[in-house]
């Protein structure tokens, strides 16, 4: 313990160690906050996609890009009939409602999409609606009439007939200054979508929500399924760190135990362990893992188990063996034997603890390699099917050709976090190596 404290004091002399430690502990705090703020089941539910995200824009960039742009990209505006001044008059056969959904649009860029969500309450007969679009300069664009189901979505941006009439995509044409279809420009001012509804039952009611999807969203942006990347960026941290740590602990401890047992028992056990290690060293590990991932299971736990199993007889055994061989002959081991300590006790209590401190740097340096291994598998499409991870964001980005379409944020953010994690542990590991390996200390 005192040795560890001393090592810690020495670590402070290395700026890279301080930086690494800061990064790692910062990430750790962030991970803990994440796990508390977005509990595991909630994160999985969010990442499954679908309904929670329907009012989010797709392919939206993170909000911080506005800091680097001359023309600000719009955020999403949601106008609900609950906040609107709904006029209602009773007719002999029901009710007539006029819902003015008005909003100010002053951004320099067009929205990415416009949708109208409807919630109707009725017994048998669906309400009928008439939609009109009113621009700040007094034009009126009829958007047609239709009946409303109980929960309905009017995809104004998908209206091909409207696009034909406007000569532009609807979400651009409806907001554009008239007269310049080649170089459309936003006409700033107060717009209104007027919903005139005929309800055919006295008890019937209608709620309408107009969503003008922006081009930026949140601090992380969204993906092709409208999911907020922030969820996966945040949750990727705990997953990556847990995976890296567990894999590193699993492989190091098993390898160490096997190595120590080989040294202690010697003879054919040692020889067998050596041969198995040589076989294992040239087994193509990644192909085997890809096979298991494709053919059997993509669960992160199965992958972890495979990594640990393939890592038991790793090249590290050779190193541990070299370190443990002199220890085996040490007088204190002889003393332990003299008082009658069993094999297991000698291995676990006398041999392994002796070399543990020397293994810490290697152990820390192992973590990033497993973090990247998990990301590698996810990028190949073999990530855990339900977990939000950094590698899976990269995989989605690649399968949607994010770089080709210019969605750079989609690749850069998870990659930066991966790099930060990897770098944090690697810097710490390098510094620890210099602390624990006296020969390196002055180099």
């Amino acid at each position, binding site marked *: 313990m005192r040795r560890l404290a001393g090592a810690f004091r020495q670590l402070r002399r290395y700026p890279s160690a301080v930086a690494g430690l800061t990064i790692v502990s910062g990430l750790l705090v962030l991970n803990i906050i994440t796990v508390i703020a977005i509990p595991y089941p909630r994160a999985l539910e969010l990442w499954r996609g679908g309904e929670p995200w329907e009012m989010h824009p797709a392919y939206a960039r993170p909000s911080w890009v506005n800091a680097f742009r001359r023309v600000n990209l719009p955020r999403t505006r949601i106008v609900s009939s609950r906040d609107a001044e709904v006029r209602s008059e009773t007719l002999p056969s029901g009710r007539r409602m006029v819902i003015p959904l008005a909003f100010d649009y002053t951004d320099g860029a067009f929205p990415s999409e416009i949708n109208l969500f409807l919630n109707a309450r009725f017994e048998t007969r669906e309400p009928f609606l008439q939609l009109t679009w009113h621009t700040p300069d007094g034009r009126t664009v009829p958007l047609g009439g239709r009946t409303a189901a109980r929960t309905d979505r009017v995809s104004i941006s998908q209206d091909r007939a409207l696009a034909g009439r406007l000569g532009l995509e609807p979400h651009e044409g409806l907001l554009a200054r008239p007269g310049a279809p080649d170089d459309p420009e936003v006409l700033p001012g107060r717009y209104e979508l007027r919903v005139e509804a005929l309800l055919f039952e006295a008890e019937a009611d209608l709620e309408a929500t107009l969503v003008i999807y922006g081009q930026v969203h949140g601090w992380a942006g969204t993906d092709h399924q409208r999911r907020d990347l922030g969820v996966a960026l945040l949750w990727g941290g705990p997953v990556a760190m847990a995976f890296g740590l567990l894999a590193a602990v699993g492989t190091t401890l098993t390898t160490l135990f096997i190595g120590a047992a080989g040294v202690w028992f010697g003879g054919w056990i040692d020889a067998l362990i050596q041969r198995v290690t040589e076989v294992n060293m040239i087994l193509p590990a990644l192909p085997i893992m890809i*096979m298991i991932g494709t053919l059997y299971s993509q669960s992160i736990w199965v992958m972890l188990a495979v990594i640990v199993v393939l890592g038991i007889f790793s090249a590290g055994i050779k190193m541990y063996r070299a370190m443990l061989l002199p220890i085996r002959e040490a007088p204190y081991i002889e003393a332990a034997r003299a008082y009658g300590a069993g094999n297991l006790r000698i291995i676990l209590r006398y041999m392994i603890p002796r070399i543990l401190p020397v293994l810490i740097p290697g152990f820390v340096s192992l973590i*990033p390699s497993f973090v990247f291994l998990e990301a590698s598998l996810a990028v190949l499409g073999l990530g855990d099917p339900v977990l939000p991870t950094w590698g899976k964001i990269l995989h989605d980005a690649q399968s949607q050709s994010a770089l080709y379409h210019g969605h750079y944020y989609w690749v850069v953010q998870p990659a930066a976090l991966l790099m930060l994690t990897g770098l944090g542990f690697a810097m710490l590991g390098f510094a620890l190596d210099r602390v624990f390996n006296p020969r390196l200390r002055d180099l």
Partner: protein
Amino acid sequence: MALREPAESHPSASPRGWTRNLRRVAVFTLARLAALFVTVLIGVYLAIVTANMGGKVDELREVQIRSGVAEAVRGDPGFQDLPAEQRNALIEQRVQIQRERLRLDQPFIVRSFGYLYQAMRLNLGRAEHMHSDRGSRQVSAIILERLPATLGLFGTASLILFFSSVAAALVLSRRYGSRLDRMVVGLAPTSAAPGWFYGMFLILVFAFLIPAFPSGGMVEAPPPEGFAYVRSLLHHMVLPLAAMFLSGIFISIYSWRTFFLIHSSEDYVEMARAKGLSSRMIERRYVLRPTLPPIVTSFALMLIGMWGGSILLEQVFNWPGLGTLMFRAIGQRDTPVIIASVVIFAYLLAATMFILDILYALLDPRVKLTGGRR
């Protein structure tokens, strides 16, 4: 490799010592070959069992055969008039013929050794779904088409990486403590990220932001002829090579430099320096020569690591090599191609190890065949 141990007496340079040296290397070579052969055997067998899902793939295949045969018999107008029993018997009979043709009537364990024997002889059989660009269904044709792409890319990358890092490390170990040296030490942790990771960034910057290089593929489409082909190939190789170089260079320089520094503080180097030998001479004779065996080892280990990482790098750069092939084969559940790629990977790894061992035995006069006895 437990075969190495310091010898009590160094073999002298006399003619008799030389022949003994040769015999020593020969025995050593044979022993290593045998060990590597067993290793490849085990690796390939594991791959066969995994790729067949422990025999489960065969059950699927049998269902497929049955439905195919049933379809054919029911659809054949010649059998329309047969009574149902007779028709079922016919189906049964035909399924049996197919099963025997594919040897599915034998237990999986027995067949798996048959597969192993075929695979080890590089008799790789026919693909189930995939075919080579020329249209051949022979797995060996498919693989041979891809092998040069992988070997070319990764061979070039490792050679560049190896020579530039050793050279840079020698320079840095001479100027140890300089700003450049400290910079390399500081950058060493960046090697925690694998090549494909840097590849993604390079594609982002040099293929999309500044479109200087293609974002993937091996040559332009359609492939040009003659000299233009080579130029196109080199142009496409720049980014993947840069990615591998970036991910490996700093850690290699760092570890070599440390290694050289430790070795240049040995007594015999001090002695040589005291004798007044030139620093070039000291470097070559007293620092580089004794450190050569470990350098070669770690070069080979780097190569092995690169083979493993090739699947991802090729995937990211859309490089038509073995890695991409294997990944596609796994996606299409084309068992013969999967097994064949693993076999080729295992052979490549074994060949790398073998060359390493031979080099080691040649470079390190202390290597003896004494086994693990102490």
